[in-house]
């Protein structure tokens, strides 16, 4: 999977990760065990992806699994998904400590989301799948 949004089979992913994010995830998994991501919203650090030890955050019956990044699940609230679903989420990392209760993406680094509006062709693939 890369930032083009599709894998080698032409499958469109709702969430992808940059090489830097994948490296940070791999490092976290080595240090702390498996992790999970939940896309936040709202005040302050809203819209940052929150990274937790796998199972720390209880997934509700209405949450949506967007995909996997580095082998770790990435979820979003179902209502938030409805207003985000026309965009692809690209997990990346940035400088600075994370806010909220999120795990850091390495020393003085945090996870963040960039977004790309799906093209008409990508939308067609998603709706067909």
């Amino acid at each position, binding site marked *: 999977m890369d930032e083009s949004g599709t894998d080698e089979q032409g499958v469109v992913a709702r969430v992808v990760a940059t090489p830097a994010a994948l490296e940070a995830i791999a490092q976290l998994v080595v240090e702390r065990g498996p992790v999970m991501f*939940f*896309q936040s919203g709202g*005040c*302050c650090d809203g819209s940052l992806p929150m990274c937790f030890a796998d199972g720390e*955050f209880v997934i509700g019956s209405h949450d949506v699994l967007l995909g996997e990044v580095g082998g770790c699940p990435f979820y979003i609230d179902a209502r938030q998904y409805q207003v985000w679903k026309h965009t692809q989420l690209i997990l990346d990392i940035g400088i*600075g400590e994370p806010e*909220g209760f999120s795990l850091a993406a390495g020393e003085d680094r945090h996870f963040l989301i960039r977004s790309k509006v799906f093209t008409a062709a990508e939308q067609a693939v998603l709706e067909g799948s």
Partner: protein
Amino acid sequence: MTATNETVTAGKTESGAFVAPGQPGSVVDVKPRYENFIGGRWVAPVRGQYMKDISPVTGRPFTEVAKSTPEDVELALDAAHAAKGAWGEASLAERAAVLNAIADAIEAHLTMLAVAETWDNGKPVRETLGADIPLAVDHFRYFAGATRSLEGRSTEIDKDTVAYHFHEPLGVVGQIIPFNFPLLMAAWKIAPALAAGNCTVVKPASPTPWSILKLAEVIQDIVPLGVLNIVTGPGGEIGKALASSPRIAKIGFTGETTTGRLIMQYAAENLIPSTVELGGKSPNIFFADVMDQDDEFLDKAIEGLVLYAFNKGEVCTCPSRALIQESIYDKFMTRCLDRIRKITQGNPLDPTTMMGAQNSAQQLEKITGYVDIGRQEGAEVLIGGERTDIGGEFKDGYYYEPTVLKGHNDMRVFQEEIFGPVLAVTTFTDEADAVRIANDTLYGLGAGVWTRNGNLAYRMGRAIKAGRVWTNCYHLYPAGAAFGGYKISGVGRENHQMMLEHYSQTKNLLVSYSTKPLGLF
């Protein structure tokens, strides 16, 4: 900004800006390092780790604070539990006297705390001098009065049986403060908790840990030992340790939705109550009649739209969606854009600066990302849309232009709290359309309605699903007006006497004054 070669008057340089904290002549002293405030003393973190605190004004670190671990939270909880008996039994007069003394001390150090707050958060000093700190002062006074006027109730069940209801303190509570109003939000949480007879362990936001420590310096001899404890550090470490502790009786939190859910999850594990305030995407609605006359009220309405730039948009209730009636859109927006062009950005310590620095590099990055996605979605940038470089020693600070995006309500920039000076503007046709768009959001914290028609204003106010509807005003936060969210904006209310109930247990004594047995056994 540095004072080395300038004459300093009352902590200001010749240019009129306040001298940066820690520089010669500043009204604010800065120590190289700050410890936790536990049990009325300054206590070094158990593991001896510290983290840098960066001023968003310059983007440079200026001091260090404790990078606490769960052991430090336990120390703070020990101190709070040791203090809860005496504080919970203190008379209302004694508690109110402490809250009033806190208010007086903050007021006596208003300029110092305002400059410190600006330095830690990035907001312009005219706001901290005029709003944040005076409102914090008033908040302590309000709850000093509120707790004395709160009466328990009694009911005569029958002529010999009486139900008495007493308010009893919860004991020790945990409170997690956001970065956007570090001192005012601390006051919103600490004042009612203390007024109701609780002791508290407070965790300030990781990017703004320092101004509350300056506040602690000001009030450390006023608050009884252990009643107020402050522990700084990363949320993932100590926020979790505090929120999930079985030693707290309530958790209060302001922040985003995921942490809000996590807080409620931890509260569920311990079967304790929580208050969570989680943000919004507040509509600010302008009906055509605001332009019926070119008068003072129209001027107020225009300012009402531009208030999205207050605190550089880092407000849970930022009026970040402007809904303007189609028939006046062009004329009204032209006037608003003229006003937005007059927003001055610069040194936040200069009292003439209107918009300061975003709180952190992360926030700046997020704002940039949103404007990018807005452009991808087809929004039109009416003004702004770029970082601001105000040069000199501020070149690495986190400044962003006041920005307006025109689009429609399905765009992500209309649906998510950007937490920056970015206004999303769209039009509506009539009252029903305005209500539909206003409520087409996951959130329901704040809203604004502007019209000369009182009946319309009332109908709109009742139809909007939000906890606070400002009517012909915006961004007023007086103590005594309940504040909190509908929908996913949170659970609970702040800023009102009803908070005392949220920070109390209800004790019912059901007393029989009859001597007669029931006769059952």
